[in-house]
């Protein structure tokens, strides 16, 4: 697929280009500063964008803002945001405009090449990819909530679901059958009082909406 990369660190940028081209993707443009990102996305209309949060000149959250702007202009534009550290509110902002085609991962995950590429594919296909660290934080932050009524297994399933995995992957990860997984998911929805739905990102949205108490 056609990918745009925005990353100011030359080493990482080259690394990403190498990684994506070797996986058979087509890197159509790269940006090294914040202001370039939005026009580039609007001009190239890629199948997916991989964006760094902090970009020059301000070294603040230019990349994230560009991603949000771009998705306003092109609804559903798949963006995978990479960051040196995880900030829960960024995840919430990104998912605020609809969770289809959104990813938010730590840069460390790029090292796990297969998982990273898998996450990018998921996002490009309109799914979700949330860093496990964001999910853990979301799951441990709340108190006196129906989350406490979940069994450890159900919590595991919910965490994987929030990261954006589908039933097949969850089943593989936990070494159980898909039927067992869907039973767990049913229980989670029941306990959290969420309307059941099939598609991955809507499940994540529901979970997040619940976890953020919004």
């Amino acid at each position, binding site marked *: 697929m056609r990918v745009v990369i925005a990353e100011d660190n030359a080493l990482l940028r080259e690394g990403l280009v190498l990684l994506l081209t070797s996986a058979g993707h087509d890197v159509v443009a790269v940006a090294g500063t914040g202001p370039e990102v939005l026009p580039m996305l609007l001009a190239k209309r890629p199948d997916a964008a991989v964006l760094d949060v902090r970009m020059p000149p301000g070294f*603040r959250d230019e990349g994230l803002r560009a991603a949000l702007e771009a998705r306003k202009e092109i609804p559903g534009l798949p963006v995978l945001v990479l960051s040196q*550290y995880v900030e829960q509110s960024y995840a919430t902002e990104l998912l605020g405009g609809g969770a289809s085609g959104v990813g938010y991962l730590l840069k460390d995950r790029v090292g796990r090449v297969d998982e990273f590429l898998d996450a990018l594919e998921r996002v490009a296909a309109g799914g979700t990819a949330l860093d496990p660290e964001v999910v853990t934080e979301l799951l441990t932050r709340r108190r006196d909530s129906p989350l406490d009524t979940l069994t450890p297994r159900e919590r595991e399933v919910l965490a994987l679901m929030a990261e954006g995995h589908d039933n097949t992957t969850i089943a593989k990860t936990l070494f159980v059958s898909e039927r067992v997984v869907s039973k767990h998911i049913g229980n989670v929805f029941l306990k959290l009082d969420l309307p059941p739905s099939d598609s991955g990102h809507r499940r994540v949205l529901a979970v997040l909406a619940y976890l953020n108490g919004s």
Partner: protein
Amino acid sequence: MWETVRRAAKATRQLAGAAALAFGAYLFISLILLSVAGALVVVGIGMVPTTTMLMRQLAGTKRRNVAEWTGRTIPERYLRIDGPLRQSLRGVVRDPSTYADLRWMLAYYLYGALGYLAVPLWVIGVPVDGVWCGLLGRKALVLPLIGRLADLDATWSEALLKPTPKALLVERVEELTQTRAGAIAEHAAELRRIERDLHDGTQARLVALSMRIGLARRVYDSDPKAARALLDDAQEQAEHALTELRHVVRGIHPPILTDRGLAGAVRALAASSGLAVFVDADSVEAGPRAPAAVEAAAYFVVAEALTNALKHSGADGAEVLVMRSAQGLRVVVRDDGQGGARIPQAGLDPRTGGSGLLGMYRRVAALDGTLTVTSPVGGPTTIEAELPCVW
């Protein structure tokens, strides 16, 4: 009439105290003169600190005595006099209060006699006012003068015994010297902590990582399977190193402060705190930013306070106020929990109740700020930090 007499009697008691003190002062001046004379012949130089301490006590007694009469306390500002002779002498000479006390004492030589005037006033006043006020029902004339005398004595003493602006300045310098030393020590400890974290954690992990890659290269041709296992291991080490680095970086300066500024960072904290938090940080939204260390400390206070509220106090809601004040930055965090939070004394086990409070206190103190924790049992808990900075 009785009222007048009672008032006059009260003033007389006051004046009697003043007169007694004056008598003491007379004696004391002689002592000082002796001590100065002695100092000139070197023998009495050892007497100087003791004499000064005595003079301070005398002045202190007068301050209390005046405060009783006027109802206004007169603050005392003395530098400490202790240690070996040379050091205590330096204290005596450097302290502007020493000269102020001396000045008062010399002046007291003159006006200390006011108290003795009360005696003739009584002698005249009792018959005069007895007729004037007791029989004719007019306003008393003479006896109230005794009260005037006491007022006069109090006014003059207060003027002379008040800490001079110079004394206040000297005290402030002393205070700043202390806090600066504290801040430098704190900073050094912080640097050592960061150095240790990097050295024991990240560096060690990178060494291990490098070793594994080296081993994998050695067995790459002969045993690809082992090489793969080593590489897997190496990747794990790299990820651990990154995780540790992230923690170190967060401890130095929370990245979100860089991204979003203090107002945005505090809002993000509130949003992810798991409590219903009302945030008012509008005053730091725009305009000049506080120094990085001050912002980081403010962020740390809010983060810790909200964590404590969630973990220990059983609170459901909290409010966070961040505002500019004339002196710097003011941070207030209030929660509706069960209260009972205390700053543990250093040396106690920090795990008992509000462990974060001590760290919070140290971090604020290092910047010459103040931290007040008001947390009655039953709640609510209010944590206030004042962080000085120049806008």
